[in-house]
């Protein structure tokens, strides 16, 4: 067991995966010599050599397109997109190619690769360093979409993603890299050191994709969240004094519908929280699924707490960020109704 930040956990997962499987190669913009702008790959080039971990030209489509070719060859590429906000140039390669190759070739060719990218705001990054594009991937069959919320999960889920035989979009909430930020910017940000989920096994381990985890048991209502919003929801649960069950979805596609159904059928009330813009965000799918599976148990309308349908602003970041206060309000609302 060691204390790790999410960055260290991600680096460690790369390291161990590369040690045990020399098909694993890691690349992206500034990931080689420098080790990535968030340092998630630092030390890997030195340890494994330039053919296992290297810098790429600034071309996201090229990074993913080349990764697809490598995966088709038989390697296990792990590509980093510097910020999720910059994944769009690669969208065609992801949607039309990576996600389709197994199906269109009837399994003759496969595409096991991982595309990692930092997501979310809270760092005054403005509209192009703050986005959460998960819903643009959950609509694409053939992809898997993973969002860890802590170092323990980040290590295990990244290993699981690398082992997965299909393309995985791995979204890393950058606001959680160094600590479990709970959405209270006015308070000092706690480090992972003081958080139980900052305790990480030293050995290699892979967590299965598609399994949610209950972060907090509760009887009054269910809060569905992932990434940074898990910690915001936890804080809101405390602040509200309600018995809220907080579910960390961890994998959005495929979704752990069982866990969601079980909890909402128990509580009869549901709040959905995400940082992405509301309209057609992943919260829409969650809301649809919950009412399809739990309609007769629902005692109040499902409420979505999300980023607004505007670009992520710079100065007004905290007016945009769906913080604990807004989540508490939503929790009270579903209790009242």
């Amino acid at each position, binding site marked *: 067991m060691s204390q790790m930040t999410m960055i260290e956990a991600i680096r460690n997962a790369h390291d161990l995966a590369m040690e045990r499987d020399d098909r694993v190669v890691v690349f992206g913009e500034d990931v080689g010599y420098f080790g990535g702008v968030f340092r998630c790959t630092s030390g890997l080039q030195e340890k494994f050599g330039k053919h296992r971990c290297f810098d790429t030209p600034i071309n996201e489509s090229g990074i993913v397109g080349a990764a697809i070719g490598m995966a088709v060859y038989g390697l296990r590429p792990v590509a980093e997109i510097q910020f999720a906000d910059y994944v769009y140039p690669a969208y065609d390669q992801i949607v*039309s190619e990576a996600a389709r190759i197994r199906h269109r070739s009837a399994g003759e060719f496969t595409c096991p690769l991982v595309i990692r990218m930092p997501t979310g705001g809270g760092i005054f990054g403005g509209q192009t360093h703050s986005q959460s594009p998960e819903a643009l991937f959950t609509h694409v069959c053939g992809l898997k979409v993973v969002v860890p919320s802590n170092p323990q999960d980040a290590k295990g889920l990244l290993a699981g993603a690398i082992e997965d035989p299909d393309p995985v979009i791995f979204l890393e909430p950058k606001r959680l890299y160094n600590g479990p930020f709970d959405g209270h910017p006015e308070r000092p940000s706690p480090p992972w050191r003081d958080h139980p989920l900052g305790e990480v096994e030293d050995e290699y381990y892979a967590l299965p994709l598609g399994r949610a985890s209950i972060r907090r048991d509760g009887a009054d209502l269910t809060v569905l969240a992932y990434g940074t919003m898990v910690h915001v929801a936890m804080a809101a649960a405390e602040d509200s004094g309600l018995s809220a069950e907080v579910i960390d979805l961890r994998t959005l596609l495929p979704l752990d519908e069982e866990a969601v159904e079980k909890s909402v059928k128990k509580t009869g009330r549901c709040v959905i929280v995400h940082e992405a813009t509301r309209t057609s965000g992943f919260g829409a799918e969650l809301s649809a699924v919950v009412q399809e599976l739990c309609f007769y148990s629902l005692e109040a309308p499902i409420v979505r707490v999300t980023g607004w349908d505007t670009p992520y602003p710079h100065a007004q970041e905290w007016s945009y960020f769906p913080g604990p206060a807004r989540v508490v309000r939503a929790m009270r609302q579903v209790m009242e109704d």
Partner: protein
Amino acid sequence: MKDDDAPLSLSVPEPKCRPGDTPDFSDFVIPKAGEARRPEIDEDPEEMRDMAFSIVRVLSKEGEALGPWAEELPSDLLLDGLRHMMTMRALDERMMTAQRQGKTSFYLRCLGEEAVACAFQTTLDNGDMNFPTYRQSGLLIASGYPIRTMINQIYSNCGDPLKGRQLPVLYADKAHGFFSVSGNLGTQLIQAVGWGMASAIAGDRKIAVGWIGDGSTSESDFHAAMVFASTYSAPVVLNIVNNQWAISTFQGMARGKAVTFAERGHGFGIPALRVDGNDYLAVRAVAKWAVARARSGIGPTLIEHVTYRAGAHSSSDDPSAYRSRRERAAWPLGDPIDRLKRHLVRIGAWTDERHSQAEAEIDAMVREEQAASEALGTLVSGGHPSGRDMFQDVYAEMPPHLRRQRREAGY
């Protein structure tokens, strides 16, 4: 040249020949067969710039094989090549008819371009991987892929290895080094580069071969392929098949103010050659040269195959709406089958009689395979991949929500 104060105006390139016009290829400079020089495979790209403006041609009008690119080849190898091209053409013709008869939804021929894929394939080793477009079915023919299986795919019948999922001719076969053809243009070139990089990372000796059409070189991903190939000097051969047309759009729209497509290589330090795409021997020689460059780790090569799309873009297209009916006849580089045949006759390895005989045999063989395939079914009749198959292979393991949907669908 207008002066500073005159208003600007948009210049939109147009082909010299539209319906009603007289075809005119007078400004298309064609070197004589045997004229183009043959650089060493490790010659400095900067020293080879001229190759992007010339055209490597081996077969003369009279059917001689001339110049430094002419290899000593056993005639049975050339006869195989001839048979490959004739088979490709026969299959195309049968399938085009089958499509018109309503036996499938769509078909796309490579009429007039048979030499490009058929000749190139013979220079590859087992394990090498092509990343083709829909117009390189010749790669499969030349690698001995079963005609019947191709027809099964075209019919989406229960013998279709792709389980009815794909549009006709979007084949995929690993063992034959033929990567799954994408319906999205331009994506495959950077994938070929990545595949080649992987081979280099793994310390392997396999190489990748990318294919793209003249019009598709406009796609932004063409740049990704060139940048990555150049930066990592990937073991790949990148082929531009310039068949003069992109549906209704002439090649000048993609080429812009450049003189040739091969020139695109110069901005990346990638050696580029132009080859007569209707000259089986020239394509084979240039392919061999480029494959050797890749396999020996010298780096990537860009090849422009100069050819002509003799038929419609596809079964959905009627070219008479946008180009002259007489353009095909005016095309100066002739027909690849005629030209190889003339050579073989000239060297005494072939006769007109044996040719017509071969035509008959091949036609009969294709009809047999077609009949056998139709016994399994066509798109509109007989055995089909079931709707159940549609849910397979979205993922290696079917997740719960897809299993539920499959039940909902009644499979």
